[in-house]
């Protein structure tokens, strides 16, 4: 008996640490991942700042939750869309972001890139194609 699988999109538009949105989104993604839905994450606007590598929060006394993004692959979260225009207006490139991968068990657990760099038009299509959008 198969239940209907819906396409869930988690839309992230906020920078980390200044507000709680980024952390809350990650929590909800991890909870939702337990329900075997088709999950995608989108990072646009200040949301792209969530994925920067080298985050070190010791001096501000907050939890550094950025290592958790690297665990998303283990939760079958393999589609992470990052918008090119959002990176560009912030002077960022993919090199500034963490390298996120998932392991393909059908190909001897080969590591595959989770992050897909997409244009704004392509991101619009990703939103359009999803059944449910959770905004953070």
């Amino acid at each position, binding site marked *: 008996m198969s239940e209907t699988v819906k396409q869930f999109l988690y839309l992230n538009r906020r920078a980390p*640490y*200044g507000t709680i949105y980024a952390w809350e989104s990650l929590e909800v993604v991890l909870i939702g991942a337990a329900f075997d839905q088709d999950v995608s994450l989108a990072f646009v606007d200040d949301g792209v700042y969530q994925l920067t590598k080298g*985050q070190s929060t010791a*001096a501000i006394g*907050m939890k*550094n939750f950025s290592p958790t993004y690297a665990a998303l692959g283990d939760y079958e979260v393999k589609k992470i869309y990052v918008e090119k225009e959002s990176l560009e207006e*912030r002077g960022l490139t993919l090199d500034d972001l963490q390298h996120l991968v998932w392991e393909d068990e059908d190909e001897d657990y080969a590591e595959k890139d989770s992050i897909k760099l997409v244009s704004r038009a392509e991101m619009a299509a990703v939103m359009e194609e999803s059944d449910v959008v959770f905004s953070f």
Partner: protein
Amino acid sequence: MSTLHTVNKSPFEKNSLDACLNYAGSGANLLLLEDGVYAALKGTRFEQRVTAALDSVKVYVLGPDLQARGFSEERVIEGISVVDYAGFVDLAAENAKVQAWL
């Protein structure tokens, strides 16, 4: 004595930085902290606006907030000084008042 202006919001999300720079007088001090630190980085859409402001306003950025967000001092626009929390306290003490732009 001059004023210490603080901006703690991302320039991409709020107009706090823009508003601050519209009002900050010559000789004022500006500290970028929390999500405001993104305005201190090179290569953003706001770099020109910030660089132009450096002619009349002394700009500081809070190092711990930069590190938390994954950016080293090398990514900071030339002319902006990186300070720690003790430096923040010094700035607050040296200026006649603190004006926060939320």
